[in-house]
């Protein structure tokens, strides 16, 4: 009698644990997800700036370490004036990003900024994601949503 009750409780606990463990999971296998992520990021290039919309224009909010933006000499607080001969003074952050995305093919940018009373021209080149960056993204995804299958891999 007692034995049987304890057995049922055990089964219920195991089942509940299984359900809980299953929770955040991709239906695809880890390998498929891995391929998918690499495919999605394959054409992407990045500049490495965070933009903020302020009254009067777009301003650089932050610069990613070890990025093309940092190497080109961007600094926080720079006001964006033009990108590839297109004025940015009245643009939104989204429009700036679209312009950057449009230049993905060549990767060449020519950005005019305004810093402390002077205009400057930067010519950064968009860079593809490094292998380390992509591996990091994949690893993050796998750890988040492939808790059980990641171990199996």
């Amino acid at each position, binding site marked *: 009698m007692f034995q049987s009750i304890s057995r049922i409780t055990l089964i219920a606990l195991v089942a509940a644990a299984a359900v809980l463990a299953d929770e*955040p*999971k*991709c*239906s*695809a296998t880890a390998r*498929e*997800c891995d391929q*998918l*992520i690499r495919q*999605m*990021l394959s054409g*992407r290039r*990045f500049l*490495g*700036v*965070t*933009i903020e*919309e302020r009254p009067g224009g777009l301003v650089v909010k*932050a610069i*990613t370490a070890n990025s093309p933006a940092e190497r080109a000499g961007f600094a926080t607080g720079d006001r964006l004036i033009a990108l590839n001969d297109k004025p940015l003074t009245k643009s939104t*952050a*989204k429009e700036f*990003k*679209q312009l950057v*995305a449009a230049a993905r093919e060549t990767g060449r940018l020519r950005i005019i900024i305004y810093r402390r009373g002077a205009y400057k021209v930067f010519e950064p080149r968009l860079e593809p*994601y490094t292998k*380390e*960056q992509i591996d*990091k*993204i994949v690893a*993050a*995804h796998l750890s*988040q*949503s492939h808790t059980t299958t990641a171990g199996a891999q």
Partner: protein
Amino acid sequence: MAGAFLAKLRHPSRGGARPDRVSFFLPFLIIALALGALAWRSYTLSVKMERGVSQLAGQYAGYAAENTALRVDAAVAAETVRVAEEWQQMEKRIPEPTFNTLRDWVAQHDWILSAAYIPDYDPASTIFASEVTSPSKARAKISREFFTSTGAVKYEYDPRRLLDSLQSAVRQQPFVRTPGTFGIQRQADVALVAIPAASGAGLHKIDDGFAFTSRLAAPLHSFGIRAVVRTEYVGGSGWENQRTMSLWMSLLALVLTGIGGVLAFRGLSKETETMKLRGALIANVSHELRTPLSMIRLGAETLKRGKLKDHERQGIQDQILHEVLLLSHLVENVLDVARIQNRSTKALAFTPVGPRDLIRTLVSTYESWIRSKGFTVAMQLDETIEDQMWDRDSVSRALLNLIDNAIKYSGDDDRAINVILRRTEEHIVIEVQDRGVGIDSNDLTKIFDPYYRAKFSDTTTRRGAGLGLTLVQQILESHGGRVEVDSVPGTGSTFRLMFPRGLSGAPAEVPALRTREAF
């Protein structure tokens, strides 16, 4: 030429003369031409209508397809904007989106398969989520990207599923409808279809109407909207096709006109034939009257002059008597035919008649005349035949006519006539055989027609009005019997009067002459 035609139209040939074929068929030709013109008009109209309806159907299909495609395009655009908007709303609430945020967003829209959020501050912090509930293996994937205030979202979706979720936009009909009375379907059948990359868009003719396919805008250009409008005018073959129909109808009308023309012509020829025969009768009768009359006049004048010997006077008197007999015979014939044709109220008097007596009396009455022509009459009479209910006068006349014919149409060699009375199972038969010229087989069917005289009869050598046999036939018919003829040209003819046996009363009606008009 045309003048002659018009003159003919204005003065069509009058009765009596045979109408010539051209002037007779001219009205029918005109009718046929008019029908032909009508048919041509109807045909061209059907062709025009078919063309018009086809054009209308094609245009309507195109309109429905284009319209629906535009609406679906708009719905797709609205949907993509909506999901982007949703993400940005979420981003405002949670400034740094996590994997769970992204996963929830993907799960909310079942047409989105997977998504990646790429923050501006660090591309390496990109998060990725793929659809949880259903397999990610979609047939075709399209990726799309939108920018947010803190980064970018790139997602992949299944276009088929997106379009399926927008089916209501496809189903909604354009507000313009066709009248439906032109044989066009009231509403177009609109459906979402996949189009092969190479071709497939545009207008196509299908079996029973038109289909128009228009592509959706990129990136969904491998899909399209296909609108089908069915018409009953296109593709209908045979009887269903209006063109064929009008052709058949006009052909039918032409055939009917032709039949009408032929029938009318046949009727008219019969009429003219009768006319001609009647003309011949007048000529015949006049001739027949003139000859005995002049003979009588000649005899009478000779008698008046006197100074004649007895035997001469006797000869002239006999001659006059003979001619008078002939005359009265002729007049009786004409009158009888007329009477029977007019269904005269003077009914035949059916009384018991001994056929043997009748024949003997007749032959003896006319013996001198027969002999004067150089003929002998041999009789073979069945003595056992009992009395019949006949009209004595008319039967005598029929027999006399036959004997008269036998004398008239005899050859010169053998001037013998056989009269035979016998009976068969059903008939009492009186046969008159001669060894004369016989009757050509072409004439056999016509000899009983009134006024008809066989080809060889020329009025100079063989006298007669062409009424004898007609009268014989009518008499026999009035007795319920018939006349039969066997004849071999050059050998002789046998006429048989077939009376039904045991005739005990008058038949109900005296048959009328078969021509349309009695004279």
